């Protein structure tokens, strides 16, 4: 690891100001991903702006929405009584991620910026367009068991690794960021991007901008929601496929529904067509299977990950079934 400078920010504003002065500076919060990347020489900032002292840890339950500070720890949000009551989907997704030790350090803002776990991204002797633009994609034609089946491009088939973000995508969250030009709000579905020709960019966030909070609008999904994560071992493994399913039921009728998937794309993948199909229908095994088929219609495998096409369908139907039966 090369030598770097670390300074402590006293306010969001001063954090943004001190970062913008440096060509190669980064914010650091929990450090659970950034420090790994620095140790592996994948990223080598000259300066770190430590934002842990900022007052961004609160979870506020306001009228019509809940606002979660960017520095709230994953474990704190997951175990928060009111989050569990109002947004169990988010709590379940958080608890499914990483390990207890990592969740104790990782923050909500940092989790959104977690970089892909694609092996070619992590192994610096391998080609990877995301790590070194124009160096090629190792996963295409290589080992791609973890890779995307939706929205990939010729330059990148990596997947977004977060569980939390899948739930936030399903819950129509909104991200608040602060930058040199002031603050702005970004719809969660637009926050992460598809790789296209510039896979080095994971999100639409400007490198000078700081995430300050994420808000979740009030909803009626608390009773019937489920986060299903399929992985190679029971704990401490990234999702091969995950499904966030949330149903607003009136008797057997589906008033409203949200479906999002993890482990399948460069971003949390909302299944809007399947949602449209389900709305207004009655809960049944057949309807859930049809929705799953519809959701996976456009999916494309790359060889090793072909199993995700079947697994994806089965997981969607299973998540909906579990959510409906709660």
């Amino acid at each position, binding site marked *: *690891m*090369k*030598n770097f400078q670390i300074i402590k920010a006293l306010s969001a504003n001063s954090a943004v100001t001190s970062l913008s002065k440096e060509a190669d500076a980064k914010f650091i919060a929990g450090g659970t991903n950034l420090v790994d990347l620095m140790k592996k*020489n994948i990223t080598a900032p000259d300066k770190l702006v430590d934002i842990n002292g900022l007052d961004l840890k609160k979870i506020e339950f306001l009228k019509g929405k809940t606002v979660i500070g960017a520095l709230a720890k994953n474990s704190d949000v997951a175990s928060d009584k009111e989050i569990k009551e109002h947004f169990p989907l988010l709590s379940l997704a958080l608890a499914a991620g990483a390990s207890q030790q990592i969740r104790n350090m990782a923050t909500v803002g940092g989790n959104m910026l977690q970089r892909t*776990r694609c*092996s*070619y991204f*992590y*192994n610096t*002797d*391998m080609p990877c367009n995301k790590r070194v633009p124009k160096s090629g994609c*190792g996963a295409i*034609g*290589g*080992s791609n*068991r973890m890779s995307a089946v939706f929205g990939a491009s010729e330059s990148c088939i990596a997947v977004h690794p977060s569980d939390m973000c899948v739930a936030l995508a399903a819950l129509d969250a909104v991200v608040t960021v602060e930058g040199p030009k002031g603050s702005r709000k970004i719809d969660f579905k637009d926050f992460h991007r598809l790789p296209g020709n510039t896979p080095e960019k994971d999100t639409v966030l400007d490198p000078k901008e700081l995430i300050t909070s994420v808000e979740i609008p009030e909803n009626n999904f608390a009773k019937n929601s489920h986060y299903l994560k*399929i992985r*190679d*071992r*029971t*704990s*401490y*493994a*990234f999702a*091969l496929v995950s499904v966030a399913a949330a149903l607003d039921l009136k008797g057997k009728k589906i008033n409203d529904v949200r479906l999002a998937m993890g482990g399948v794309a460069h971003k949390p993948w909302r299944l809007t067509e399947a949602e449209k199909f389900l709305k207004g229908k009655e809960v049944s095994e057949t309807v859930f299977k049809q929705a799953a088929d519809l959701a996976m219609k456009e999916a*494309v*495998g790359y060889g090793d990950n*072909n*199993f995700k*096409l*079947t*697994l994806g369908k*089965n*997981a969607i*139907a*299973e998540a909906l079934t579990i959510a409906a039966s709660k």
Partner: protein
Amino acid sequence: MSKTSNINRVDGFAKVTGAATYSAEYKTAGVVYACLVGSTIAKGRIKSIDTKKAEWAPGVLSVITHLNVDKPAGYKDAKDPHNFGQPLQIFKDDSIVYYDQPIALVIADTFERMQYAASLIKAEYIKEEHQTDLNKAKDKERKVDTKKGDDYHRGVVDGYKNAAIVLEEDYTIPTEVHNPMELANIIAKWDGNKPTLYTKSQGVEGTRRSIGKVFGIAPEDVSVNSEYLGGAFGMGLHTWPYEIAALIGSKKLGKPVKLVLHREQMFTNVGYRPYTIQKIGLGATKEGKIVGLTHEAVAQTSSYEDFMEGTVNMSRFLYNCENVTTRYRIVPIDICTPIWMRGPGEATGSFALESAMDELAYKLNMDPIEFRKLNYAEKDQEQNKPWSSKYLLECYEGGMERIGWENRKNEPGAVREGEWLVGYGMGTGTFGCYRSPTSVKAKLLANGNLVLQCSVNDMGPGTATMMTAIGAEVTGVSSDNVIIEMGKSGLPKGPTQGGSATTSSVGSAVNDSCQLLVKKVIDLALLNPVFKNSKAADVSFVDGNVISNKDTAKRISLVSLFEANKLQELEVENQSKADEEAKKYSIYSYSVHFVKVLVNPKLGKIRLAHVVSCADIGTVISQKTSAGQMFGGAVGGIGMGLMEVLEIDHRFGRPINNNFADYHVPVNADIEKQEVFFVNKKDPISNPMGTKGLGETALVGMAPAIANAVFNATGKRVRDLPITLDKIIETAKV
């Protein structure tokens, strides 16, 4: 059960409190820090290597490459192929024979500066075409050029083909890595021409010999300290290039050098379980009597060293069969040399043999245990010898009872628990009982403590605890008063820790030395007037006193005995080895693993609802550490069965999952209920205690037990490990 068999792990407290000192933790004045920079290609030559930036970086003391290395004296006569493979002769020349092969050693005054400087080294290569895919290098397949490498035949060659019911299948296991928690590490220093190493070794004496050869010095001049190991699983059975590198660096600088491999380097530089393709041909009569068995293995080795293991061996004796053929072939590819990984070849072999046994039982429509019992081997047909002891049937019974075998239905998918398909499976493991000559010094001190000394290591199985239990048992000294000194050169010579032979070798030596010591105490006591006219048989040594058997009032304490004879201590050093009688018998340990799985076929999820491991290991010396070993070995087998695989991208010849996030081993939550059970019956032949060995067989047979249970649940036969979920759910066509 002896009163010492339930003692606690004697080094447990030191290990969990951090008081145990591992190799790289030794406080060494003036130590400097080193690391290795690896090749980025798998095969070729180094065209140029730019070390300037690194040399000029702050704190850097030296950068050593093939261009400036002072070659150790032993590099000249590279005769011994095992210890003198090219890469052990680190920095010998510009050739690259595997990815991540060390090309430079960077030494600096601090760890951070060393790391940074290493990142500045850039090499250019003349690439040659590499081959890391065994399946594409089969034209290079050949026998190992030793007696062990020969084919084995008994009866008709490939006689299985003539049977009424025939099974022929291929079984594949991937490359797996040992990767103990404690990284490979060393502190190397020189005193004149005599090196001292604090290193991760499973054999102090073996390391002394290898280092001696490389540097052209006598093994006695090499000091090795490897007192505690944070696991090794076989990777400490070889002396590796990193150890030579640290010694070269230390010699050049005249300073102690500390070198700890990165986790990534643990996947590329210190051995692995080789990728192996096996073929089983199994033939039986319609009634289920096995008439022929052929077991073939084709396994990877490196381009510069031959490596072979006992993959096909158990097929020669595990079941009663007149016609047996085994063949072993190696394929050299451009990856570093394998090294025995726990269970070693037997674990690989059992996956093929015990899966095939299950498959043939299905062909015969028989219960797999009934099928095995029908073919029970009453004697060792390979060596034509009787078994010393064999309680395999007790292992079957114990496991069936605990797992609830009566709930199993032979028809796949016939048992359900809610949405889950239930499957039961079992697999048999076995491993030979070996014993090598071992010296132990036993000392009684005036304060009543018993000191036991041997250079053997304890990589985690509980060797120190075993020595304590036996020493306390024989001498009557309380186990709390036994002091173990081990894992260091200079102590009486112990064996390398491997092949489940430690208790048989070291335990016997402790037993013998302690018996001689007790005799010495008694002989001394008999000279005392208290025991006038008594014979050795008339007295006993109990709780630090020599006491008359007839009249317990007649006694003399050790303290008075020492005082009377002006002694500080009484000691015996003795070498023990197997007797001739043992050669007349075939001595094997057995394990049988039973697994109950719950499978969700839609999601491919396999839950290990219940795992039972039963073993016949002769006498159990220490209940707790033996159970610990069995639990751990079984978990290793579960990793082998369900998740472990080192993935290589053959286009580059590089591993892609060289970290613990991507190379999966089981977590606690993967195993819902686990039990172990020992028959615990003394072997009359093996050694004075009647033990047979445990560490290896604890893992052997688990992977096929899982595969067989998965078949019983789903009707899917997985013949290539690991059994990941994509092999269980149906794969969509694209």
